[in-house]
Every structure is written in structure tokens, then in C-alpha cells.
């Protein structure tokens, strides 16, 4: 297959505001993944002595959350429930023009080309996305039974890979889906109750401080999320936040 790529290029120089560059990607097997296609383009760029396209990736199987770009306007590309590394070229048309851009959000500054700085997510978790338990002698695992339905929903929420597609797809660059996933996971289990109200306050405060926007219920996040984290978790977050303010 053959594609024309329009790729966002931006150097680390703070004065560089970036631009699209055009590259031809020819002789691509339909079984190639999107990132492997970029590898091939890069190998050819290096052989020609050109600057290869910088992009983040690691596991290449949809679980580490490292990869991610906006492809033809969609975070992680057009396929539902898929990370960029799981997208395969057979899902594009031969000869198609493909626009590739980094996540764009005030809280995710571009580092270079397609790489962005997502450390704001780490800071939100550091603010309260945990259960304060020391390594030591917790109770026996089966001493805390959890109804299967709660456990299953907690698991669905815990599937978030922290990729940032929700932010990138949101017109307000809001991180509500990401935060709500953690709030839901920990708020549904008995172990998470003692810190429940503090947690929601500190995490939301950290989110606001990092410069993420407010949620206006656009729903783009749910559509872009590769782990299909549902939007109703945001309602849970809002409920918990309201309760926590009452309790304060």
C-alpha cells in the first residue's frame, strides 16, 4: 500500500512553533501496524540522512499507554477501542492522505514532533490517586469480600492506561474521564472508603492546577478512549465531589 503522510514536525527549540511536513510512505504491507509504518518511514529518512520523526511508544500492544497521536482528526485514529499501536494499515485506503499530529492541550506541552509531556497525569495521581497503605501486614485478601458487580465495575474503571486521548479529543482539554476512572475504581471498594472524600478533592485540585479545562459534557473523550471508559464515570466523580464539599 501507499500513503501520503502529513506529519507535525517541531523541534525542542521553544521558538519553533511547528509545521506539517509531507512524506511518502510506499510499499507498506497491510499487516503493518501504524507505528511499524512510521518505523519504515523513519528508517528511510535515516538512510537519506534526514531527521526521523520522534514519537513515543513502548509495549506496542495497547497496554502501556505510551503511544498516541491524533490521526486524521481522531485521537489514536479512527478505530474504536484501539490504541495507535494496535491500529493496522489495512484499515486505511490505499493512497490515502494521513494527517498526524501530537496531542494538543495546554497541560500537555509538545516536546518535539509527536511527543508530548504528560507528567500532569502523574501529578494528579500523586495528589491522591492511591489508598494509603504501607507495605506490611494488611488483612488477609479474602477478609475483604467485594460484591462481584462492584469488583467488575472497579475493574472496568481501572483499565485506564493513562494515555491522554481523552484530553486530546476534548474541545476543553479536560482530564475528567481520566480522573473519574481512578475515583471510581477506588471509590467502589471498601479499602478506598476512608480517603474517599479527600481523594476527590485533592485530585480535582491537582487537575485544575495542571491547567486542564472544565467538562462540558461533549462526550468526545468516551469516543476516543481506547479502553472504552464510559462517560457516566464523570457523573460519579461529580457526585463524589459534591458530597465531599458538603462534608467539608
Amino acid at each position: 500500500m501507499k500513503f501520503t503522510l502529513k506529519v507535525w514536525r517541531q523541534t525542542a527549540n521553544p521558538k519553533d512553533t511547528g509545521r506539517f511536513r509531507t512524506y511518502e510512505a510506499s510499499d507498506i504491507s497491510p499487516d503493518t501496524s501504524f507505528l511499524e509504518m512510521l518505523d519504515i518511514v523513519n528508517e528511510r529518512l535515516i538512510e537519506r540522512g534526514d531527521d526521523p520523526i520522534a514519537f513515543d511508544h513502548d509495549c506496542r500492544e495497547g497496554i502501556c499507554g505510551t503511544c498516541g497521536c491524533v490521526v486524521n482528526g481522531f485521537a489514536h485514529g479512527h478505530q474504536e477501542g484501539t490504541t495507535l499501536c494496535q491500529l493496522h494499515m489495512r484499515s486505511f485506503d490505499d493512497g490515502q492522505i494521513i494527517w498526524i499530529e501530537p496531542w494538543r492541550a495546554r497541560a500537555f506541552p509538545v516536546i518535539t514532533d509527536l511527543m508530548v509531556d504528560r507528567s500532569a497525569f502523574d501529578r494528579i495521581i500523586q495528589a491522591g490517586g492511591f489508598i494509603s497503605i504501607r507495605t506490611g501486614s494488611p488483612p488477609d485478601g479474602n477478609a475483604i469480600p467485594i460484591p462481584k458487580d462492584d469488583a467488575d465495575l472497579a475493574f472496568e474503571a481501572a483499565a485506564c492506561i493513562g494515555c491522554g486521548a481523552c484530553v486530546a479529543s476534548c474541545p476543553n482539554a479536560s482530564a475528567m474521564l481520566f480522573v473519574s476512572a481512578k475515583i471510581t475504581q477506588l471509590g467502589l471498594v471498601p479499602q478506598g472508603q476512608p480517603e474517599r472524600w479527600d481523594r476527590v478533592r485533592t485530585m480535582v485540585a491537582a487537575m485544575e492546577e495542571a491547567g486542564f479545562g472544565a467538562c462540558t459534557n461533549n462526550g468526545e473523550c468516551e469516543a476516543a478512549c481506547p479502553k472504552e471508559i464510559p462517560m457516566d464515570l464523570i457523573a460519579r466523580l461529580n457526585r463524589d465531589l459534591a458530597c465531599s464539599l458538603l462534608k467539608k
Partner: protein
Amino acid sequence: MQLDPKIPEGPIAEKWDRAKFQLKLVNPANKRKYSVIVVGSGLAGASAAATLAELGYGVDCFCYQDSPRRAHSIAAQGGINASKNYQNDGDSDFRLFYDTIKGGDYRSREANVYRLAQLSGNIIDQCVAQGVPFAREYGGLLANRSFGGAQVSRTFYARGQTGQQLLLGAYSALSRQIGLGNVKMHTRTEMLDLVVTDGRARGIVVRDMLSGEVRSHAADAVILATGGYSNVFYLSTNAKGCNVTAAFRAYKRGAAFANPCYTQIHPTCIPVTGEHQSKLTLMSESLRNDGRIWVPKEAGDRRPPGEIPPEDRDYYLERRYPSFGNLVPRDVASRAAKKVCDEGRGVGETGLGVYLDFQTAMERLGEDAIRDKYGNLFHMYEKITAEDPYEVPMRIFPALHYTMGGLWVDYNLESTVAGLFVLGEANFSDHGANRLGASALMQGLADGYFVAPMTVGDFLARAGKSSLSTDSGDFKAAQTEVNEKIKKLLSIKGERTADSFHRELGKILWEHCGMARNAEGLSKALEQIPRLREEFWGNLKVLPGRNDQVNQTLERAGRVADFLEFAEVMVTDALSREESCGGHFREEHQTEEGEARRDDERFAHVAAWEFAGVGKPPVLHKEQLTFHEVSLTQRSYK
């Protein structure tokens, strides 16, 4: 070099207790004065960093990803073992210990493995308390499933995302300590050297992957939890960034490398489709609980699987190993797949594949039950192959997956360099010549949560502060060496990319040091690798003149350079181990039925290799393994 395993005295079940009593403690008020470097934020690194910080030590933690949450542990799918005996099916610490020793083909240290079994239950408790969403039964209690090499159900899991959930648990504990200011996290930072003065680890040299800055960090103890080296084969199930660099540079500074030839080839991975392939994807072993493995009886039978009637199918694992069936250990299952493919009975376009079929299970349990257990794995498979495993059987083939070999450590997880501790997949400790499924997560967390925090404390109490700053001569020298190497890589200006060398190295190793090895092939590899390395240093092409910002070609080139040196140590080890054991299968040493034949007389030892200088062959040291609790038999899963 002295290899003292420091195994505590006393009956096996009491050793760890005795050790804990004998280990020196650091007074709580003094802990703050000590600093510890933890390289790696996977299960082993994150759990160690969090726990040491909770105890009061000052911790600096490093990883090459943009966040500690992305360490390769995140990709583990199937589960984690623990001898909880929640199923009341006869499990015990001793049984888990026995299965692990036997699964490792009697090439691991009894005392370490027993401790691992003893700690396994604590890990589950710890993770549950952190909020890790393990699978549960309708009554709300924890669920279990079976894994290869065991006849009890002791594997705890979170659908096909167990590693993710455990790592996020450890990451949350680590994040809490970062937030409290007890851990300083250095992301996008790659360790490129270890600094050793007077035989003691003093710190590390790192490169900031964003700015290119090379700098040093000093500490009173250094922990490496940098994962395994499967990527030496280029194609493996590991994440793209996994590397041997940190461990290998420590080896060059005096840490012995143990059993590098023990590599694990996982039987159930998605087959290779072409040259473009950059990595292989695992389909969790847990699938073998319900999936049945088969190939056509006749070589060259090209009918689609649905048209092959039962009588023309060979369920070869069930046939050859009736008591374990599809749940034989990985090494056995992988070799059996290779055998049927060598016989021309492999499936798929390349003939390098076997079927993993869920039809029987779906008829028995219903499609929904299968979806509930394996939904995300089926989904992942369909993404990659564009085939729906609910409709047609999966095609699978063995691939490089895990490395049992690693830096040599004693019972306290300390390497041959004082003050250098090695945890998780990066050490060689618990899995012998073959790791059982769901045991790596257990080992990483046992090392990080429970063992290292005790033994590192003991080291600090005995050795005191290091009091060597990064201005000292050895730090300066190591930093200069690192800078020189980077400069050299940037200056070659040849024709070939780092990836192309890596791919070629991978092919050499897969052919001669893969599922089956022999003296002739290994000797050939020992000629080919140095030639390739020479070409690398003369004909490499990386993006020149860019060491002051992101340069991913340079990062890759540095890792490939280390793989090219390390590969030689690995092949040397494989050649010198003239027996078959676990994942190391020497064709010269097999039984008439094609099973591995060990040579306990000559090889019941750990082979620890010492770096002897550039261009010199490494020096072999042996740690004799003695067995008091189990008797060495030929492993049988029939």
C-alpha cells in the same frame, strides 16, 4: 571472584525468619540519612522504591519511559501465583516451592524459592489492600485459575490485565511517596553506567533523554530492577525499549552475570507475518486453560481448520502428556510446537503456527463465559490478525518472552559488587532454567516489597554511608567514558541503521541460540556476532550531531551496542552448558523421546560469568546447587 550465596542455616521453612532476625537494622531516626538509587519502576523497582521510602530512606528512582506507570510489567497478562490454598485443592508453600523447583528443571536455589513461596500470600494481601481489582467469584471472594506446570488452581488474576493492575498498585504506592517528597522520580532518564569504588557501588551515570545531558547520581546503595534481556533477539514479546544496558554495564563493572543462556520461549504468541514486524505479541498462557492445541495429522493438509474433522486432528500435547495435557510447562509446549512444524504440519501461510482452539470450551461453557475470561485477549488477537477467534481457532507460535538468566545475586539479592542489589527479572534468582507462568510477577513483588527493603537496610547498617560525591575521580571517569561512547556513536556516519543491525543479530540468535541449540550452531554464532559488531562500529548510521535534544536513533544505537556484546556472553554460556535443561535445549543431549536430558553430575551449578576485560573471553565461576528438600528426577509431565 567469590560466590557466597549466604544461605541461612536451619530448616528450609525457618531460613527467612532466621535471616530477618540476623539482618542488622537501621535505627529509624538514621534512615533519613541514607540514600538509595532504584533503577527501574516495574513491579520490582516501584515496589522497592515505595517500600524503602515508607521505611524512611531517601530514594531516587529512574525509568526510561515518560512515567513510572509504563514499565514493561504493565504488559503481563495472565496472573500471579500464591499458595493461599483458597480453593482447598491441596496447595501449600511446599507445593508451590516444589512446582517452581521442578518447573525450573532443578537449576535454582532451594532457599530462595522456598522464601518466594512463603511470601506469595503476603503479596496478594498487600495488593488487595491497595485496591488492585482482582477477579472475584459471586460470593465476593477472590477467584483463581490454573497455569502451566501446576495441578492446583493458585493463580490470581485481573482478566488478561494482571500486570497492569499490579503495576498500577505499586505505582500508586510509589506516587504517594513521590507526592510526600520521599522519592525523587527521574523519568525519561537512562542509566548508562555504574560507578564502583573499592568494590562498592557508589552511584550511576545517566543520560537525560530529552536534553541529552549526561550526569551522575551518588547514593549509599544501588538497586537495579531493569527487567530482562529478551530483546537481544530483536523480536520478542517485550516492550520495544527493554534492554540489557543497565545490567550489562554493571557486569562490566564487576557484577557476575549468571546463566545468560536460560531464555524462555513462550509457546503461545501470534506468529510473525513479515520483515516489517517490530515485536511479537503474547497470547496469555491462561488461554491454555480452555483452549486446545492441535495441528493436522497429515503434513501438508491445507484445508481450513473448520473443514478438518476431529479424526484428522492431532491434539499433540494431550496425546503426548496425558496428565498435564495442554498445561505442560512452557519449554515443553514450545518444543512440541517446533517439532510438529518441523514435520511440516504447521498451519498458516508460513507453516510456522499451530491452532489454539476454543470450540470445545465454548460448547461447554458458552461464548459469554469465554468472553468474560479472555475478552481482551480475543480482542487483541483480532486487532492484529483481523481474524475472529470466536469463529476460527487462533494461530500461535513460540516467541522469546522472558529471561531466567540475569545478574548473580546471593540470598540477600546482593550482587558480586557490594551495595549493588538486583531485583525482578534482572536477577537470575528463582526460576532456574525455566520459569513457570505467573511466577515472575510474584518474584518481582516479593523482591521489591519484602526482601530488598530488609536486606538493603542490613547492608547500610553494616557498611555505613558511602560518602563519595559525584565529584570524585571514579564518577568523573565513568561520565567521560559515557560521553566518549556517545560521541563515537554519533561520529561513525556509515550506511546502516541500528535497527538493521539489531534485526540481523536477532536472526543469528534465533537460529543458533533459540529453541534448539547445538555446538556447531553456537560456535558459528560466536564467529558471526563479533563480525557483526565490528561492522556496527564501522558502518552505523545515526542522526549525527544531535546530543542536545531528543535523539531516538542514538538511544537505540546505544542499546544495540550492548546487545552485540552481551550476545557473545550468552552464546558462550549456551555452548559451555553441555546438557539440556528447561529452556536450554541442546540437541546433543536429549532422550529417545526427544525430551531434555540433564546432566546433574556435571551441571548442577549456576554458571556466573565475570567480565575479564575488552576482547577477552569472560571467566566462568560456578555456584554448586545442593538439594535437600527435593530429589532430582527427570521432569515428567506425562
